[in-house]
């Protein structure tokens, strides 16, 4: 009997030991997992990136350098930073006047854009004695047969615009103060030349100048686009829709808007905030480090803190860099501080406009590359202002030739806003977005139907019947998801686009 009891006790002990062993094993495994999380997950160290992450980043950086993997060089000056908001080719085909609206999605756009730039830069280098003053009637005549019409969206001082076209000396700036509108046509039958018509957007004065280039190149372009040009796209003044009839109270359009009589389709795009996940800012250590170094912030010594709205804030020296959960990168310097030097300039020299634009574009492009946006996104300069060596430059996104407009919480904001003082960066704001094409087509109505739909929502007693601008934009409200293209309309006397 005592032997049986001993056996029972032994069995109980063995069972207890087994349970203890199992519990111990579980505890050891848990502690190992927890230690791994603490050591290698950056989010669990409130002071910032932990020792092991920093070591890992430094090792990766050294190894990359040894094997010749360099940071991609800053992009050279792009020729398409300044793009026309309206780029129209018009020609005659099958006894009809036909028009094609051009953008970077057109197959031969790169060639046409290069030719355009060459023609404009050559014309802008000519002496002012060669300018021939004309009037509005001649301007409209030039738009009648064959040529290119360009509207660069806003008025630029002539010397600034010329510098964007790569022209260092522009004598005609003494005669024409500002530039925005151009018409380029082959010269008359007897002259082998390309004529450039320039309209000062502020004074309304019209001039023509000979570029001196042979017209064959331009004629070949106009011949090549004729297959895609449509006789149902017309300038407003052709149709008499630029002036009121008197009694009907109808809408009138800016004379040089191209009105499309037929609807057309564009692919929708999928938009995403690439630095946000599950409501908080999500950046890999490498991306964060590259971002900080671009702003000359030492990632080893800087200490971020998380703001009340879950933004990451890095305070360093006399500047602050903030990454919001909404995907905005906001860099500001303290008042009175010189700012982040983008290029070393002698203290006596002034920053030329085209150089400021290139610096700003290169910087923005660098940020765009770091945050991993898609290759189909381009930045284009949507506005440029200069005041005694200080520049405010806005860039916006262009997806496959169609610009993107922010609405909703980001209404009125640009994709990138840069403030420069000479070559020093004072303020930088960037709405980081990623766009990808979808396979879905979205049908857009004709210009007339779009205007009918908009005006059907207006109060009839309001006197809103003059349209200054109509453009197609992708409407991005800042949320992740599918974004559709729409007609956006600007009424005369208003700065806001509506749809």
């Amino acid at each position: 009997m005592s032997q049986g009891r001993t056996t029972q006790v032994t069995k109980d002990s063995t069972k207890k030991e087994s349970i203890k062993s199992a519990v111990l094993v579980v505890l050891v495994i848990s502690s190992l997992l927890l230690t791994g999380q603490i050591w290698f997950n950056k989010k669990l160290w409130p002071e910032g990136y932990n020792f092991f992450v920093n070591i890992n980043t430094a090792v990766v950086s050294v190894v990359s350098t040894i094997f010749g993997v360099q940071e991609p060089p800053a992009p050279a000056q792009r020729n398409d930073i300044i793009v026309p908001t309206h780029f129209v080719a018009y020609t005659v085909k099958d006894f009809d006047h036909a028009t094609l609206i051009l953008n970077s999605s057109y197959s031969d756009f790169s060639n046409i854009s290069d030719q355009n730039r060459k023609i404009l830069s050559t014309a802008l280098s000519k002496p002012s004695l060669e300018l021939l003053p004309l009037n509005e009637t001649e301007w409209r005549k030039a738009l009648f047969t064959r040529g290119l019409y360009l509207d660069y969206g806003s008025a630029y001082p002539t010397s600034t615009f010329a510098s964007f076209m790569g022209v260092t000396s522009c004598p005609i700036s003494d005669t024409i103060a500002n530039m925005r509108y151009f018409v380029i046509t082959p010269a008359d039958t007897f002259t082998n030349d390309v004529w450039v018509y320039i309209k000062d957007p502020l004074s309304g004065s019209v001039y023509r100048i000979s570029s001196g280039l042979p017209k064959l190149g331009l004629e070949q372009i106009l011949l090549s686009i004729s297959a895609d040009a449509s006789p149902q796209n017309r300038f407003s003044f052709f149709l008499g829709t630029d002036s009121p009839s008197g009694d009907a109270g109808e809408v009138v359009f800016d004379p040089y808007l191209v009105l499309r009589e037929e609807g057309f389709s564009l692919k929708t795009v999928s938009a995403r905030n690439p630095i946000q996940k599950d409501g908080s800012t999500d950046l890999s250590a490498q991306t964060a480090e590259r971002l900080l170094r671009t702003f000359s912030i030492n990632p080893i010594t800087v200490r971020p803190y998380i703001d009340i709205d879950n933004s990451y804030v890095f305070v360093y020296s006399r500047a602050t860099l903030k990454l919001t959960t909404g995907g905005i990168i906001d860099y500001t310097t303290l008042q009175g501080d010189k700012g982040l030097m983008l290029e070393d300039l002698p203290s006596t020299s002034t920053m030329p406009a085209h150089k400021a634009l290139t610096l700003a574009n290169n910087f923005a492009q660098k940020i765009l590359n770091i945050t991993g946006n898609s290759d189909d996104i381009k930045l284009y300069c949507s506005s440029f202002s200069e005041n005694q060596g200080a520049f405010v430059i806005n860039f916006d996104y262009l997806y496959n030739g169609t610009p993107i407009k922010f609405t909703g919480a980001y209404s009125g904001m640009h994709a990138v806003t840069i403030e420069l003082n000479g070559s020093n960066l004072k303020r930088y704001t960037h709405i980081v977005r990623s766009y990808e094409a979808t396979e879905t087509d979205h049908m857009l109505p004709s210009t007339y139907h779009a205007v009918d739909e908009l005006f059907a929502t207006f109060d009839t007693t309001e006197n809103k019947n003059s349209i200054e601008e109509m453009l197609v934009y992708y409407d991005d409200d800042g949320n992740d998801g599918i974004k559709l293209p729409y007609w956006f309309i600007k009424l005369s006397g208003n700065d806001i686009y509506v749809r």
Partner: protein
Amino acid sequence: MIKKLLQSVCLVLALSMLLAVCAFAAPSSMSPNQQGNSNSLIYIKKPASLSATTSEKTYTVSAAGRPGVHVAIYRRSNYDGQFYRVYQGGIGASGVYVVSIELIPGKNKIRVRAQNNDEIQIIDIDITRITQSQLDRINGLSIGDLFDAY
């Protein structure tokens, strides 16, 4: 009884729908002498003088009018002189009406009919399409004159 009542109701409904459609659709043809009873429904903006000469094959007529006015475009047949409908639509909230018409070489008589309830306005437009040979002769005449002068 109920069946007959239902049949009558269906017939009345069908007739009223048909009448409604007829009331809004412009006639498919018109005689040249037909006239309207209004002159304030629509204003032709292009061609400005209600007649034009062009070398283009496609001519865009533009007009302005009150939103809701129904517009039909007719082309006169050279065979019997009647006007036959080629397009119809309505004027939207913008008050602008634009339509492109294919022209035949020579004279094209186009009629614009605007209707708003009982008001009808009829406007006739003459568009002459000159042929390529006529255009070449005009262009050639200018060069010939230039040389003849010397």
